[in-house]
């Protein structure tokens, strides 16, 4: 890979993690100095970035992204998804395994890794499938994927639940050898089958849509934390959507079980009533839940029961969404709006500070995925993977402006406050106010 040298950069007067104004000097892709030192150490030729009023965070890390390549390049490519990620303030994404072919071998994992490097906007880390072809029957080559250049540490059959208890147990045990983690899409397929698409309750009853009961998620979360306790392994619960799941995770953490959990921006902010008009834009798995659940999820994020925000960015081509509701594809876009949603919903009302945002959108996801060059503190020596946020910028989401190839954006027309201003990958600008800058040559 050709290395282009990035000129040194002095970020002046940024609010570092929302905790105080500092100057930060970036040299050779790393943080060289912080504070008064920064200006003194700046070599000649250092560019200056006036960042007064902006908040500096470690670059955002998304533990749950669907990039669709290989297989559905009409919906998203690694390149277009990486651009959307950079525009959203991300410096690393974990690309889910449900591509076509499935990422269940070292070769496919390395292909995705290389596509990410070639695009150069964010670090793309492939997630490996837990089972071959996501079929839920035999373990995929977990160890070989880990030993590959892609160094896979996160495994998930996302889109499907690893519902066989014995197989889930084996997967949890097996990944211990290399400190891997299994990310579970919790959905008991007998309680919520593939047609289930609306939170089960009065609304699903009235709309005549197949119900997706909360308990179908909760029984799997409960089982998996018990399996994690039994095996002493790390389990991660993807897109927690119900109050009951939060209760189970809270209990498990109290027991010292090694469980982490994520919530999506849409389960935090959007609720089931959006389904009343049968608009497939709002069809997602697990489904949007009642307001009561969303409120519990917000609380659990604020108090740390839920560790991270993950986007579950799920682009779909137009023709896959423009069907009758039950026939349309599951999923919504999320990379470009995640920060704005967390800012609008949690930071603006004072329920979380920017240091908390750094934890739930960068440090903790990087730690769960064992990424050593992401989610670090803003301290000398750390890689310059950084996001500058404009905490007061208001904007109305316009799906036409997305970097994603798809348009299934549930936030279209909504006003969000707080937006990524600048994204830096190893000291190089990858996105500025929604515009992306050429990838690495």
């Amino acid at each position: 890979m050709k290395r282009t040298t990035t000129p040194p950069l002095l970020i002046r007067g940024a609010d570092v993690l929302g905790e105080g104004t500092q100057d930060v000097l970036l040299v050779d892709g790393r943080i060289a100095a912080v504070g008064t030192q920064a200006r003194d150490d700046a070599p000649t030729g250092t560019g200056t970035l006036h960042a007064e009023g902006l908040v500096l965070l470690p670059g955002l890390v998304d533990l749950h992204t669907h990039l669709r390549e290989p297989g559905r390049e009409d919906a998203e490519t690694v390149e277009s998804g990486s651009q959307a990620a950079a525009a959203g303030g991300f410096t690393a994404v974990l690309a889910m395994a449900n591509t076509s072919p499935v990422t269940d071998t070292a070769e496919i994992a390395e292909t995705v890794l290389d596509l990410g490097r070639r695009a150069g906007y964010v670090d793309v880390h492939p997630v490996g499938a837990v089972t071959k072809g996501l079929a839920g029957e035999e373990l995929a080559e977990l160890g070989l994927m880990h030993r590959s250049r892609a160094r896979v540490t996160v495994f998930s059959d996302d889109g499907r639940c690893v519902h066989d208890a014995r197989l889930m147990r084996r997967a949890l045990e097996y990944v211990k050898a290399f400190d891997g983690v299994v990310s579970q899409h919790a959905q008991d397929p007998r309680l919520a089958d593939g047609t289930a698409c609306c939170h089960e309750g009065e609304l699903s009853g009235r709309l005549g849509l197949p119900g997706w009961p909360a308990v179908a998620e909760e029984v799997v979360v409960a089982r998996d934390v018990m399996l994690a306790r039994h095996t002493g392994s790390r389990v991660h619960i993807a897109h927690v959507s119900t109050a009951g799941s939060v209760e189970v995770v809270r209990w498990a953490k109290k027991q010292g079980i090694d469980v982490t959990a994520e919530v999506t921006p849409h389960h935090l902010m959007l609720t089931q009533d959006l389904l009343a008009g049968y608009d497939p834009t709002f069809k997602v798995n697990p489904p949007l839940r009642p307001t009561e659940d969303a409120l519990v999820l917000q609380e659990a994020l604020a108090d740390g029961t839920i560790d991270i925000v993950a986007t579950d960015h799920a682009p779909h081509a137009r023709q896959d969404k423009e069907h009758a509701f039950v026939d349309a594809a599951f999923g919504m876009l999320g990379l470009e709006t995640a920060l704005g949603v967390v800012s609008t919903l949690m930071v603006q009302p004072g329920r979380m500070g920017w240091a908390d945002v750094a934890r739930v959108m960068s440090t903790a996801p990087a730690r769960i995925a064992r990424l050593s060059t992401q989610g670090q503190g803003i301290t000398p020596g750390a890689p310059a993977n950084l996001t500058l946020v404009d905490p007061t910028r208001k904007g109305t989401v316009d799906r036409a402006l997305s970097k994603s190839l798809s348009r299934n954006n549930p936030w279209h027309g909504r006003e969000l406050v707080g937006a990524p201003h600048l994204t830096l990958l190893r000291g190089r600008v990858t996105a500025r106010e929604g515009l992306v800058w050429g990838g690495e040559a």
Partner: protein
Amino acid sequence: MKHLLSIADLSAQEITSILDTAVSMHEVQDRDVKKLPTLRGRTIINFFFEDSTRTRSSFEIAGKWMSADTINLTGKGTSVSKGESLRDTVLTIAAMGVDMMIVRHPASGAPQQIAQWVDCSIVNAGDGTHEHPSQALLDAYSLRRALGELTDRHVAIVGDLTHSRVLRSNLLCLRKLGAAVTVVAPPTLMPSGIASWAAADGFAVSYDLDAVLPTVDAVMMLRVQRERMSGGYFPTAKEYAVTYGLTSGRLARLPAHAVIAHPGPMNRGLEISADAADAARSLVLDQVSAGVAVRMSILYHLLAGEGNAQ
């Protein structure tokens, strides 16, 4: 009124107006020449993505008797399998110059979605487990003919409520007309959230058919599919028939004036006994013949508007 998508969109007045017009349409059925010029030059597409001979022929006859050009299309095997979206499929048809599309679709909400994509009138002829508004209107028509005004009349709706679009439309329609409604089924065949739904819309929920029957003016039996047994909704056909079927014994205990309705097709011996189905108080055949009149009235209200009836 441009579309008929859900009974929820109609006021009590609009429902009554459709039922009143249906009375005069019904008279056409007794004429030698069954033809009104009302919809001459209008094109109506029966777009059925799911088989339903009964509903389709009923709409087709209604259209023909009103002189519309009616065309039948089956949407089975189109869209999803060919990689074409539902939106593309209906836009293609609508582009041919159609005044109305009568849509039957196995997916709940499909007619509502289609109405947002095209300019012509859309009639929901049954969508998944959501609604079947023309059926509810013809049921109300039949009940009104048998019982007079439905205000404060008590109707029990019994059977597989979870999977019934007829239930949802009938609940809305009967409540708007002022009837009291009790829904009866085993808990496994009740729609989810039924308790809060009942509280919001003012109807009653019961698991005990014998307790409800003596208080009704009409009982509407819904079809129960035997396949539900394999889904674990109830143990055996025998147990269902004994517990929730309109058996001969229950027929004898119905109030003398009470009538029996069933939107069909019936499972004789499961939800309804043969003697109940064929009883003098059974409205089953009335419902079928009322179907054409009510659908003529619906076409009239959507396409012709006030003052054009002949």
